């Protein structure tokens, strides 16, 4: 064929559409960008967009359809871990490629997947270290608050082990879970307040995007300020904050590998392109679009894949996998990111940002450079020596 087909597997309806829609758009933008420069191996890229509708079995069905019916060379997609788990067997069976752009809990390494989001050591651990530091407020007690699903559960398991290794007692850790879509945080905020009476406390939030607004609103109304009890979130980025009145949130934190507010020419260019694209394609609310970490991860992922195809001179899965190892790309986060030669994860810098009144983040801490991913967290027993495929 004279085009190379690329599958885009993000929910455009259902509960996850809130987060995933913009990933679809940024993927299309990136594909346009590559095509404008002549495509890959002289062929144009052609996006095949499907809507798995936030339904996990439908993810598997759609993945199979993309690979087997549409014959795509690669799929960019998924957000939740469960959707990824649901499509994995399909990618393995049909030996195809998935690029997964979201931070996740680790404990996984698949030949057919490239993980361009953060593993726990590229996000969660540094964030907690920061909270314990003098600049971060010197927290002694921790509330691990999350939505009840695997990503928060796993992350918290790792964090608990990590905190223990730092000498934090179990009685100084409170682990709380809420159901998906939970919207009444009165009791939980009251409990946090109670817990915080026992010493300098920080909240580590793995609350799923949807529940964050009610949580932060409650926090603000209960008079818990960032200076009293800082909250660091792993699933709240610029996109989520678009829907929030951020004034009461100022000072709360998020840890990511990218923020829109990072200043460097690559990022400026990225943001400019995205805004122009949003206006050109008449995306809803085009005037206020923002970029965020998973969007950057998608963008980087597609470019790296394109480079790998050029290098392999083929879209054949195994050849591309081989060519991916060690690929580098000058990313909007200001660093040249490298695809690890062995573990299919990107080396990524870590940033901690405080929420600003305008819904952007003010970077208050960052790693000196990209960090290699530890998908198998050393804080989980039995993971020693499991870093390679």
């Amino acid at each position: 064929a004279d085009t190379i087909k690329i599958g885009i597997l993000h929910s455009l309806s259902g509960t996850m559409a809130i987060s995933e829609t913009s990933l679809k758009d940024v993927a299309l933008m990136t594909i346009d960008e590559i095509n404008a420069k002549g495509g890959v191996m002289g062929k144009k890229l052609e996006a095949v967009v499907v809507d798995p509708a936030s339904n996990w079995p439908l993810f598997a069905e759609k993945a199979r359809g993309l690979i087997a019916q549409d014959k795509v060379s690669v799929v960019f997609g998924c957000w939740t871990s469960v959707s990824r788990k649901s499509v994995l067997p399909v990618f393995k069976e049909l030996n195809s490629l998935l690029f997964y752009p979201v931070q996740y809990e680790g404990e996984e390494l698949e030949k057919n997947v490239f993980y361009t989001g953060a593993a726990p050591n590229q996000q969660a651990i540094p964030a907690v270290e920061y909270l314990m530091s003098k600049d971060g407020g010197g927290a002694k007690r921790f509330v691990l608050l999350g939505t009840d699903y695997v990503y928060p559960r796993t992350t918290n398991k790792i964090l608990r082990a990590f905190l223990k290794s730092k000498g934090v007692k179990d009685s100084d850790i409170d682990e709380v879970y809420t159901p998906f879509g939970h919207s009444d945080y009165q009791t939980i905020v009251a409990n946090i307040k109670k817990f915080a009476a026992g010493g300098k406390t920080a909240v580590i939030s793995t609350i799923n995007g949807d529940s964050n607004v009610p949580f932060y609103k409650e926090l603000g109304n209960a008079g818990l300020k960032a200076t009293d009890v800082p909250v660091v979130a792993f699933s709240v980025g610029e996109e989520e904050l678009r829907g929030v009145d951020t004034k009461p949130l100022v000072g709360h934190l998020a840890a990511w590998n990218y923020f829109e507010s990072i200043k460097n020419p690559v990022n400026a260019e990225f943001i400019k392109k995205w805004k122009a694209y949003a206006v050109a394609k008449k995306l809803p609310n085009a005037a206020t679009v923002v970029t965020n970490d998973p969007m950057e991860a998608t963008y980087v992922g597609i470019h790296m894949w394109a480079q790998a195809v050029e290098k392999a001179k083929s879209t054949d899965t195994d050849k591309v996998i081989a060519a991916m190892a060690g690929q580098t790309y000058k990313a909007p986060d200001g660093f040249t990111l490298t695809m690890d030669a062995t573990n299919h994860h990107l080396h990524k810098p870590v940033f901690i940002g405080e929420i600003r009144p305008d819904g952007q983040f003010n970077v208050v801490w960052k790693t000196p450079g990209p960090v290699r991913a530890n998908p198998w967290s050393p804080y989980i027993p039995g993971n020693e020596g499991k870093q390679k495929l």
Partner: protein
Amino acid sequence: MLRKLFLIACLCFARAGYAGIPPDMLAPLAGDDPDARVAAIAAIGALATDDATRLLTALQNGDVYTTPDGKLYIVTDDKAYNPATGAITAPPDGIDGIMINNRLRGAIEEALSALKMFSPDRAQRLAAVTELQKTATLAQAPLIEKALAREQDAEIRELLRLVAATANLQSPQAAKRKAAVEALADSSNANLRPALQAMLTSDADQNVRVAAAHTLQALDSRLARTEFVGNLFYGVSLGSVLLLAALGLAITFGLMGIINMAHGELLMIGAYTTYLCQLAFRRWAPDALDWYLAAALPAAFIVTALVGIVLERTVIRWLYGRPLETLLATWGISLILMQAVRTIFGAQNVEVANPAWMSGGVTVLGSLVLAYNRIAIIVFAALVVAGVWLILNKTRLGLFVRAVMQNRRMAGCVGVSTAKIDMMTFGLGSGIAGLGGVALSQLGNVGPDLGQGYIVDSFMVVVLGGVGQLAGTVIAALGLGEANKFLEPVAGAVLAKIAILVFIIIFIQKRPQGLFAMKGRSAE
């Protein structure tokens, strides 16, 4: 720290006239050494001049800018004020805002609250003292006692007394400690527990230990009471949210028998209307922004009522007498409405801010914060229920509505235009859902999926109360709210929710027609 505070104390009384802030104090603020910045803030605070207050406040608000060569300006309304010189100029080129982080913010607050303890403004003093309650240390004791000596206001005095006692807990003199501990028997400040607990086990003095035990007991019982009242309030609050979410459904489903799966989307439309009203106010009446809800309420009612009327005229009206089919049709409507909103406004949430008067809360019983937005919603729910009750039971329209819903054909035969009543009833139910949407927009997300989060709960509330029973809906909503809030601290949010569902299942066994079951022949 200690020295710093003494400095503040002394300088508070020796208030100098105008003198610029020395540039060497300002310089570190523009730098990036966190320790130096914290020290600079303390030093500026210690100046205790109006300029210092102004600078710190500006820093807190993000109004302080720096030029590339390190000069600081307070920039407001396109005017730049130089705190070193007092000069006012136009903002210089190339200035950049000074970022502060939590640590600095904390330092600023601390400095400001010490300054504000002597402010002539009662509210500022009260805020400062409340703030100090959290952090009072022995070092601050002399300062606090001075403030206590000067304070005239009874409420603030009382607070200050507790703050002073808190500070004195660490006093080296046993007698002072004991006095402090005893004084704190009236406090409801949970933050004192660790200190008291520590004294209980390890204070050198027997008397202090006894006093600590006594105070701790008093404190704990007061905290338990506060917690109980808190849960009660949270329950009413959750109940009123459920009620507002369900009330429209109590009409469209309870009264009209339409299994209205699009009810959630009507809530959502109400919330989006609120968003649009807010946008309109931002654009055209920014000064009145705080009152955008006053416009949003009627707007949301009208918009959703109109949507409801259109749905009724085009789809629902074909389905009277086929209640089960309404499930299918309204499910379709719900899909369409959600996708329409997604197409117009995007899949992401949109921002709806609480008006200033609904932000924050009032503190009662010492430590319980009742959020204004929650209180407002409770009051609002009560008003809407009262309104609906009046319409249904005290007006001719209400009589016709009930008659049509019970026997459509006969209502026609006595001269009621059933089509009109159907339309108005569905419109009313939808409009009330819209009002519910306004309320929900003040608490959580406003996004295309907003309604999906409430639809199941709404049906549970209406059914549990007894279909067609307004009073039942109210009691069911409040009951579920309370049950949830008293279970949650014990069982956690997930198990509490499961327990509530199991409770509903068991409850219906006992009352198979809901809480307010219709009895007798008329029920058949």
